[in-house]
């Protein structure tokens, strides 16, 4: 082996990773070659500087800080199913509550969706009143009057600021005849 071959073995020789035959070759060569011996000494010094860092452990406060600020939440623990079920139940309850509130608002007319409120009253023709069909030979039928109170959303442009919906009431009277 020449000097180049030996110098190529030096990086692993200094760390103890060289094979046995390589180690023997390097040791034999540097014992007779002063230039290669000096080169090997350079490799040893450089490695020694690295090995010196073995006593440079991180400060205690840095090490302890790793665990101190570590609070992993279990994603899938033994009770994951219970947690998932609990989330589902709460979600259903919130959804149910929301639907209930919306319906209640609609029925109470307090800003709810347009609703139709019906009230029906049987209005019998009073004395003197005549059916429009009077004289036609048709039997007098009960006349009923049905009132519908309908709520309609106010057009967007007319809404006061900050209000998304403002109902107005419009009463519609429906009069009709019905056979009983």
């Amino acid at each position, binding site marked *: 082996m020449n000097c180049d071959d030996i110098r190529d073995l030096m990086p692993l020789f200094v760390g103890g*990773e060289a094979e046995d035959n390589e180690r023997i070759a390097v040791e034999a060569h540097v014992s007779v070659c002063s230039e290669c011996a000096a080169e090997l000494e350079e490799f040893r*010094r450089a490695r020694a*500087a690295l090995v*010196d860092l073995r006593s440079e452990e991180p400060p205690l406060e840095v*090490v*302890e800080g790793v*665990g101190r600020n*570590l609070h992993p939440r*279990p994603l899938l623990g033994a009770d994951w199913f219970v947690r998932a079920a609990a989330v589902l139940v709460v979600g259903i309850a919130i959804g149910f509550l929301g639907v209930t509130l919306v319906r209640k608002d609609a029925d109470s007319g307090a800003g709810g969706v347009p609703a139709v409120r019906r009230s029906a009253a049987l209005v019998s023709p009073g004395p003197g009143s005549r059916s429009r069909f009077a004289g036609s030979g048709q039997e007098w039928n009960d006349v009923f009057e049905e009132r519908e109170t309908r709520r309609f959303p106010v057009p967007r442009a007319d809404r006061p600021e900050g209000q998304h919906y403002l109902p107005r009431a419009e009463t519609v009277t429906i009069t009709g005849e019905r056979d009983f």
Partner: protein
Amino acid sequence: MPDAQEVALLRRCQGGEPAAFRELVERYQRRACWIAHNLLNSYELAQDVAQEAFLRVFRHLANFDLKKNFYTWLYQIVVNLCIDRLRKLSRDRAVDLEEVGGATDPGIGPSEREEQTELRRRVHRTLDRLPAKYKAVLALRDIQGFSCEEIAAIVGCTNATVRWRLHRARKLFKGLWEGHRIEVGGDETAESA
């Protein structure tokens, strides 16, 4: 093969026991932080990486094969996170992260301590100029003292590759240490990994 005590601890961790995980963290946090510091030369970043590594361990511990060594898996995560961080730092052209604040030899005087600190600063500066993959094997071998087989498991390559990288890393380090200009060809630039 891991010892029985560690296997029992890992089983408890897999069962979701918080106290067991705390014990696991206390057992390995020093080394994890230390390895990260060797590669990143910053205690703040090292702590950050170590925490991130333990979080990843926590997330994936259920799938960990108890027949394997836990520490090789943990340190593999630490090394990979460090390499990712080094790539990002070189891309962002971060400021000098040099930090030397670890323990010095208590048996030496103040001037010697200063000399030792300055020497360590120089070592870190030299290490920082190496490509990440070479820095990793050099730190794991010469600073942390792992065997080539252990390093192969940690960095995820063969024993032969570890030896080749060690060979190249020591050659580069020695050249830079002596102050020589080193041509690192191909993809072996100081900023690449």
